[in-house]
């Protein structure tokens, strides 16, 4: 840190990557995952690198600290960190560079911390290694760092083990460690992807503040465009290992000049967009295999603007005055035709009628009764002698063909509720679940085949949801067999079902590992629809997927609902997604229903103070400088619930003692809309809008 910059008048760029090529050796083949990557991060600048998974974002980050996976290799180009050529450094110099000039923050804070060491020990190590301080002095510095990342009571945190801290807290500790040596370059690799929206907003705010305070350069890697738009000065868009667009964040997101950027931005469900407003845009086709595209534009196969020229020669990065785009027709980018996959082929339009002879599952024409109805639904776990209520007295009605969105932070009981509905865990005594007017046995094991078929699930993680030893044909076929189909009839139905989720017959003989995440999720959906279900629980069905795939899956779910009149319980932490698919929305907090009502009313207000905070935490592309309501503190420990209203410990609108003493009932706040708050609905409605602007300073 001290010796190098003395010579030059100006301090060198924090990171300079020149014509970088990186290859991975897979078996005997070498795959080029980054080609001719050039980028420069100036002093004090924050640079965002965006793109979908598999585009090479993380590879670029690891190359920048010379820490590629064992089978990876820099095959060309130069990387200069703080003016020093990374490839020319000796192991000792490299080690010094990594301790002093560059730091990295990873996506999963739980895995970045050593679970068997106290936070204090881990943080002190940084100072011992970088500055040669003694243990006592190091601990003191660690405490100082923790207070700089706004951790209240640093002494307590220093004595804790990582598992005793929440995810947001862990990530703050990691950020503190990364900034300890005041590095010239801070690399953040999807730093908030695993965090809840409210915590994410808080961590991002912290990063922004620290960036101003420490004045280091930031390489911010994310798939989340609104987050990058908010955090970064400049942004680079990676596609298939190539930088396809680069420029100041504001202008790139206002006026993208590459069709891929345009496509990506259109995939994000805009704030307030609903399923009856039409389908979401997608990017058709697939990411090409690394290194497979030679002599043409990498995006040519998926681009609506592509011409013959794009297939004949590879476009260079063109300078458009302060910004770059790798396209022959940058001026046409925004005229990219809107693309969403073609509607389902006609063969699949009537699966419910043809396949489910008993017809017990979805009774049409009984609108008076809700299809699914829960009362008093509770689940208490015993954890080391204490009881912990994951779900508390939830009452939900779900009509046929309706979507109920379930939102809340992690730990709010969304997934526990889903498991109770499906019978995968047993609710407390006194809980009632009714389906089509009949009481459902609590355990899936005790339900009749018809009841089982009627209630199905699409899982969050398509990798874990599909048995990796079975082919797609078998995966879906086993469910069809349960639905009473054999031989030729089963094969016919299988093909129909596969076609309705846009799988080609070729996919039927493949195993899950040969499929991409989006295709796997389609298989999961086909399996859930095998028995013509009445209700499908979608547990974060798109959170493991890229945005372009997410929009295709959402389109598919909406389309299947229109065709088959199925009901969804749709769990998601992404409020824009929930708003897009849901007719009604329920907000959960610590297992309690805080608000339930039609989507429009929940979004437009009056809101519960918690809903209001969730809504204001949504990062959006349109309004990068959002005014936010900050929730103070962390989700309370579920083993030690707050008295009265469970939200009072974090509520920005707490009235006073009444909130601590008395749990508010669900007050009606308009048609079908109810809010659990002591503040009268009328007042919540009045204040919610002014409240947002109050905080704008």
């Amino acid at each position, binding site marked *: 840190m001290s010796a190098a910059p003395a010579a030059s008048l100006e301090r060198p760029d924090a990171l300079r990557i020149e014509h970088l090529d990186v290859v991975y050796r897979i*078996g005997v083949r070498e795959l080029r995952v980054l080609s001719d990557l050039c980028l420069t991060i100036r002093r004090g600048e924050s640079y965002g690198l965006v793109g979908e998974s598999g585009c090479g974002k993380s590879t670029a980050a690891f190359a920048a600290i010379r820490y590629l996976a064992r089978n990876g290799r820099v095959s060309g180009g130069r990387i200069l960190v703080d003016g020093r050529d990374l490839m020319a450094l000796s192991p000792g110099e490299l080690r010094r560079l990594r301790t002093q000039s560059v730091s990295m923050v990873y996506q999963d804070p739980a895995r970045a911390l050593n679970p068997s060491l106290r936070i204090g020990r881990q943080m002190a190590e940084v100072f011992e290694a970088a500055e040669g301080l003694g243990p006592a002095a190091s601990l003191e510095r660690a405490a100082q760092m923790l207070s700089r990342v706004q951790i209240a009571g640093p002494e307590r945190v220093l004595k804790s083990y990582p598992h005793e801290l929440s995810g947001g807290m862990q990530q703050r500790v990691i950020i503190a460690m990364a900034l300890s040596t005041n590095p010239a370059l801070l690399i953040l690799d999807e730093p908030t992807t695993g965090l809840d929206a409210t915590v994410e907003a808080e961590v991002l705010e912290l990063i922004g503040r620290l960036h101003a305070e420490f004045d280091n350069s930031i390489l911010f890697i994310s798939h989340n465009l609104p987050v990058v738009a908010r955090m970064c000065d400049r942004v680079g868009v990676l596609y298939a290992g190539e930088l396809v667009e680069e420029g100041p964040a504001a202008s790139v997101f206002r006026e993208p000049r590459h069709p891929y950027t345009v496509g990506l931005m259109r995939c994000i469900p805009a704030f307030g967009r609903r399923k009856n407003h039409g389908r979401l845009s997608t990017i058709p086709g697939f990411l090409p295999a*690394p290194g497979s595209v030679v002599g043409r534009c990498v995006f040519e196969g998926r681009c609506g603007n592509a011409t013959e020229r794009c297939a004949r020669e590879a476009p260079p990065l063109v300078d458009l005055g302060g910004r770059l785009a790798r396209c022959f027709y940058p001026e046409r980018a925004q005229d990219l035709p809107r693309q969403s996959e073609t509607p389902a082929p006609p063969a699949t339009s009537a699966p419910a009628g043809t396949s489910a002879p008993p017809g017990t599952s979805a009774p049409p024409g009984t609108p008076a009764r809700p299809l699914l109805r829960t009362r008093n639904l509770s689940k208490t776990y015993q954890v080391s002698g204490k009881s912990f209520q994951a779900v508390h007295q939830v009452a939900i009605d779900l009509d046929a063909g309706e979507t109920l969105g379930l939102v809340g932070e992690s730990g709010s009981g969304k997934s526990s509720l889903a498991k109770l509905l499906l019978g995968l865990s047993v609710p407390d005594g006194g809980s009632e679940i009714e389906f089509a007017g009949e009481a459902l046995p609590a355990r899936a094991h005790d339900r009749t085949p018809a009841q089982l078929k009627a209630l199905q699930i699409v*899982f969050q993680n398509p990798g*874990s949801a599909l*048995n990796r030893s079975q082919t797609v044909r078998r995966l879906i076929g*086993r469910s069809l067999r349960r639905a009473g189909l054999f031989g030729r009839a089963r094969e016919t139905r299988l093909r129909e079902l596969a076609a309705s989720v846009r799988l080609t017959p070729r996919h039927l003989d493949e195993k899950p590992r*040969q499929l991409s*995440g989006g295709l796997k999720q389609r298989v999961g959906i086909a399996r859930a629809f095998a028995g013509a279900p009445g209700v499908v629980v979608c547990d974060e069905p798109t959170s493991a997927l890229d945005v372009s795939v997410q929009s295709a899956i959402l389109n598919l779910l909406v389309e299947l609902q229109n065709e088959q009149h199925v009901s969804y319980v749709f769990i998601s932490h992404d409020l824009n997604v929930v708003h897009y698919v849901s007719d009604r929305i329920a907000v959960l907090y610590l297992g309690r229903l805080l608000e339930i009502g039609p989507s429009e009313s929940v979004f437009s207000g009056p809101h519960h103070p918690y809903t209001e905070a969730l809504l204001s935490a949504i990062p959006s592309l349109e309004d990068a400088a959002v005014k936010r309501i900050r929730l103070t503190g962390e989700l309370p420990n579920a083993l030690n619930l707050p008295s009265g209203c469970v939200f009072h410990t974090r509520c920005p609108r707490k009235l006073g003692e009444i909130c601590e003493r008395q749990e508010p009932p669900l007050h009606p706040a308009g048609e079908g809309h109810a809010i659990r708050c002591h503040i009268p609905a009328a007042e919540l409605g009045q204040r919610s809008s002014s409240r947002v602007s109050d905080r704008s300073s």
Partner: protein
Amino acid sequence: MSAGIAPVSLARERLNVALRSSTLIAGLAILTFWIVCALLGARIAPQDPYADNLLATLAPPSPAHWFGTDQLGRDILSRVIVGARDILIVAPLATLLGTVLGTCLGLCIGYLRGALDDVVSRVIEAVQALPLVIVALMALAAVGTSNTTVVLVIGFVFTPLIARTVRAAVLVESDLDYVAAAQLRGDGALAIMFIEILPNVLPIAVVEMTVRLGYAIFFVASLSFIGFGIQPPSADWGIAIAENYSLIGSYWWTVLFDAGATASLVIGVNLVTDGMSSVFET
């Protein structure tokens, strides 16, 4: 990074790794050699392994008897070749029995959990605390010794060890969503255990089996050595070592080649184990 890579079938990829693994190839070469010896036995032995020749007892290695002769003047090379047969029948059968029983037991306790798992797991731990040779010795002393009883006893002794490994893998699998999906489809416990979970824990069971095979060979040889394993007149290596070890000072060849054969077989199996685990890791 794997998202965009052209899909290659798993079996094919594993074969590629296998063909490039020198440990696996070396191990397989050793194993194949001994399997050929066991299969062809007397037909490839240069002399009759059972024929006494009291005029040429304890002859040192020479062109006539490459490995020398034993106390009864029998050709040791021929006896080593023929001696591969019994151990290569008994040890693999015992391991297979232990693997099949252990896998079934591990699947049941790992998937069903509850009181059954608690009880069986404690019993397994208790069994593991005992020295296995002693357990096997007592059992063989009680039921009488023959190749069949040796197979059964070693098989039963291995069952809890393999069950424990399989149980751990089943616990991981049971938490995956595909198991919940099968329950929601209405599949019974048996179908979920044997159709859904078993194929995914099989690689672990197979690797565990090859590990156990190495132990089993050693185990059988030890039992034979103390007279509770394979019985004479078999030309088994363990028996030969037992018969001759008192002569090792002056007549080293009567013990060395049988001991070397046992060792090379165990090494061969272990090399295969290492190779297999790296193949299944892909």
